[in-house]
């Protein structure tokens, strides 16, 4: 029943050095806030993506700490300055310890 994790990363493929680009990230996740009845007298534990980090050119450029106040299929948009051609690594951390990684390539001209 588990929906496979999926993410859509939207950003320009190329940028001039020093240009500020906007990165939009949409992940597929139910972001279950927990607390509902599980039908057996207990409650469902919280299971959300609690953190997204973006690493680019050897440094963490953005971190998004999420709590239950972020919607299902969380969307986030942020900016970064294009410094070098390379991969931007996006890593999500889920409650329970699972993590998911996606990358996107940026060419700096």
């Amino acid at each position: 029943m588990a929906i496979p994790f999926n993410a859509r990363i939207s950003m320009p493929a190329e940028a001039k050095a020093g240009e500020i680009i906007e990165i939009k990230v949409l992940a597929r996740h139910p972001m279950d806030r927990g607390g509902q009845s599980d039908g057996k007298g207990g409650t469902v534990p919280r299971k959300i993506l609690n953190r997204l980090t973006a690493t680019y050119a050897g440094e963490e450029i953005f971190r998004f700490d999420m709590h239950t106040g972020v919607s299902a299929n969380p969307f986030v948009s942020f900016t970064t300055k294009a410094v070098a051609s390379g991969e931007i690594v996006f890593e999500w951390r889920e409650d329970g310890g699972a993590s998911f990684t996606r990358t996107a390539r940026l060419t700096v001209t």
Partner: protein
Amino acid sequence: MSLPISLRSNAPDALRLSEKEPDSAEPRGGRTGPSRRQLVAGAAAGLALAPLPRPAAAAAPLSEHVLRLTEGVVPERARLRLEIPALVENGNSVDTRITVDSPMTAQDHVRWIHLIAEKNPFPDMARFHLSPRSGRAEVATTLRLAQSQTVTAVAALSGGGFVMAEAAIVVTLSACIDGG
């Protein structure tokens, strides 16, 4: 007005206090002059005004959540723009954009932006960590809101200061309906 209730509960204390005070406005033997009601009301008013730490109580329209984040520093209501719809049909996914007017240099940048929904079961919604490499202090996300309330964005600046903005939002259908 809660005056009659507090007046009744404070009446014995108030009388005792006014008798002890030598410079009381009420004359000692003048019981026949002012009525008993005026005397009690005057004493109660004096009691209410004197010992309460009024300035502290009056100068705190900020929510305790904001002060918890800023560790007691009062943030400036400037430079931060919180774009959120004034009315949404449901609170499941509310588009929100936050922009802070900052040069984003190593000396002067936004360290983080935090979103609070005071009436959510868990008021802390999200925190964005930024750095000079962000280039601009502009972030957007989708929020989940339990009910109509005030959403607050607080940003921490590299210089140690804080800025904030608030926006009232009407949510016609909550995001906290079980099975919804």
